[in-house]
């Protein structure tokens, strides 16, 4: 899939933008604070209906204005679609082919985007929350049912934590029964989330291993392992995971009541990455961690292609300068002529790759984009 036109109105520092782009690599050059990342953010919004850097939609509206508009014409393999988002102080409206969508979940998923930004380089070393988010967004792009199961899980979790808090210090009998019920509900929802994550990481490993071997010239083998907080394994079926989860909750009940928190479940899970059997998080060099992050992102692109039959749009926000020459080359080779890509950077000095030379180049300055070639 690819974007044909993108229009912005009063979005961040763009007063008005009408951009025509082609299905290839688009390079956006410019100094800092000229609107490069804002453009990426707008495209990201069209895919997820929320920003990747703020939870407050009001920040997205230009200073002193009441509303902001993002519009795009999208070309997909089975026809084209017009996507629109209107942000105002009253909230946001999303439109597909000019029809307003009642639920955000109906809008999300029409356009698929994979974004690679400097903060993704922390994916390996950073906290488990980042990795869980990576997994959830990855599955969410290809399965609405997963998003529903996940939000169901989170709601039950909230209910259960609230109940646990109210049970301290002396639990009443009806609270004990209620805890039992919420544990059961939580286990059912948790099992669905865990099973899906296992399957996703298996696929992700398949793709990223191949890519990683290529980048490292066959010297490194990447292994991904899901680390559930509950004692379950990939071979188990749904009912077995559910059973284990329930047993763990039952076992830790007293401790959970004391702490007012649910201690086991997908909200505490993590993934580990290994190179040639050694854990990257612990033993990997900076460079290895970057390569792994790159492999995972490129694998995500293939995974989306595998499940929906077309490539997503790739956003590379300021990451070229973070990678060494060899990795840059690999990244640029990988996207060559198959994925519509938006690349931002302050300078292309020293990067002499064919992909960039053939790219359409825009220059960003104070909320305008000028086509250079």
């Amino acid at each position, binding site marked *: 899939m690819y974007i044909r036109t993108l229009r912005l109105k009063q979005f961040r520092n763009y007063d008005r933008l009408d951009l025509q782009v082609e299905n290839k690599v688009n390079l956006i050059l410019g100094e800092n604070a000229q609107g490069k990342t804002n453009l990426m953010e707008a495209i990201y919004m069209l895919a997820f209906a929320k920003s990747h850097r703020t939870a407050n939609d009001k920040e997205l509206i230009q200073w002193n204005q009441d509303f902001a508009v993002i519009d795009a014409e999208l070309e997909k393999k089975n026809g084209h679609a017009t996507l629109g988002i209107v942000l105002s102080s009253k909230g946001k409206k999303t439109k597909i082919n000019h029809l307003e969508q009642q639920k955000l979940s*109906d809008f999300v998923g029409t356009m698929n985007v994979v974004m690679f930004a400097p903060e993704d380089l922390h994916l390996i070393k950073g906290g488990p929350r980042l990795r869980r988010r990576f997994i959830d967004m990855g599955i969410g792009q290809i399965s609405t*049912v997963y998003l529903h199961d996940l939000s169901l899980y989170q709601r*039950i979790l*909230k209910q*259960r934590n609230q109940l646990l808090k109210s049970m301290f210090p002396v639990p009443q009998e009806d609270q004990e*029964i209620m805890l039992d*019920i919420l544990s*059961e509900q939580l286990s059912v929802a948790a099992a669905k989330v865990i099973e899906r994550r296992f399957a996703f990481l298996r696929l992700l490993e398949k793709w990223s291993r191949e890519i990683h071997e290529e980048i490292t010239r066959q010297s490194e083998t990447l292994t991904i392992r899901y680390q559930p907080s509950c004692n379950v394994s990939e071979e188990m079926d749904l009912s077995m995971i559910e059973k284990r989860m329930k047993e763990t909750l039952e076992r830790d009940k007293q401790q959970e009541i004391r702490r007012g928190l649910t201690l086991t479940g997908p909200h505490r899970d993590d993934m580990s990455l290994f190179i040639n059997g050694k854990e990257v998080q612990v033993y990997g060099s900076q460079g290895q961690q970057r390569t792994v992050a790159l492999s995972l992102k490129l694998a995500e692109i293939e995974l989306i292609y595998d499940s929906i039959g077309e490539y997503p749009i790739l956003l590379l926000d300021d990451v070229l300068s973070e990678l060494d020459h060899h990795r840059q080359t690999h990244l640029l080779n990988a996207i060559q002529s198959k994925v519509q890509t938006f690349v931002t950077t302050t300078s292309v000095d020293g990067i002499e790759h064919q992909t960039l030379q053939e790219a359409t180049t825009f220059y960003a300055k104070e909320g305008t984009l000028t086509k250079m070639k």
Partner: protein
Amino acid sequence: MQYPAPIAKLMEGFMKLPGIGPKTASRLAFYVLEMKEDDVLEFARSLVHAKRDLMYCSQCHHITDVDPCRICEDTSRDQTVICVVQDAKDVIAMEKMREYNGLYHVLHGAISPMDGIGPEDIYVAELIKRLQENENIQEVIIATNSTIEGEATAMYISRLMKPTGIKTTRIAHGLPIGGDLEYADEVTLSKALEGRREI
């Protein structure tokens, strides 16, 4: 400009109703001034009566003007089945169907720790007591909503009912009848698929 006190008070009254803001309240208040005095009196009386004469049925806790309510009193109804619902409005929905001929029990809410609603805040204990006192009951149909809270409440009731040995059933959920498969959302479809059965 300030409203004269009687109008201001009337508006204040209207604004206590759901969905009515200052503008609608002012429109309604001025309309009342135009109404015939008899109609206004009639309206005021119905308001007071609705509040004063309506109560919860001592058996099923449905809203009623006589106790026990007309459904509980109706001997032509099947006295062996009780349908448990969350709200009085649900009873009215069930009755519209004209297919169910048993009794009801209205819980007036669902258990939700987040909102501070525990089992003691809804009419669960009353249901259990009713089952213990009435030996005719053979089946309890739990028709709470298919939300997390509705499901939790259903499970809670079935847990309490275990010792009584009475048959407990849960209503099914899935695709709406007469609806095309293609219009159902993914989540409903996957639920319907989970609940499939052999034919």
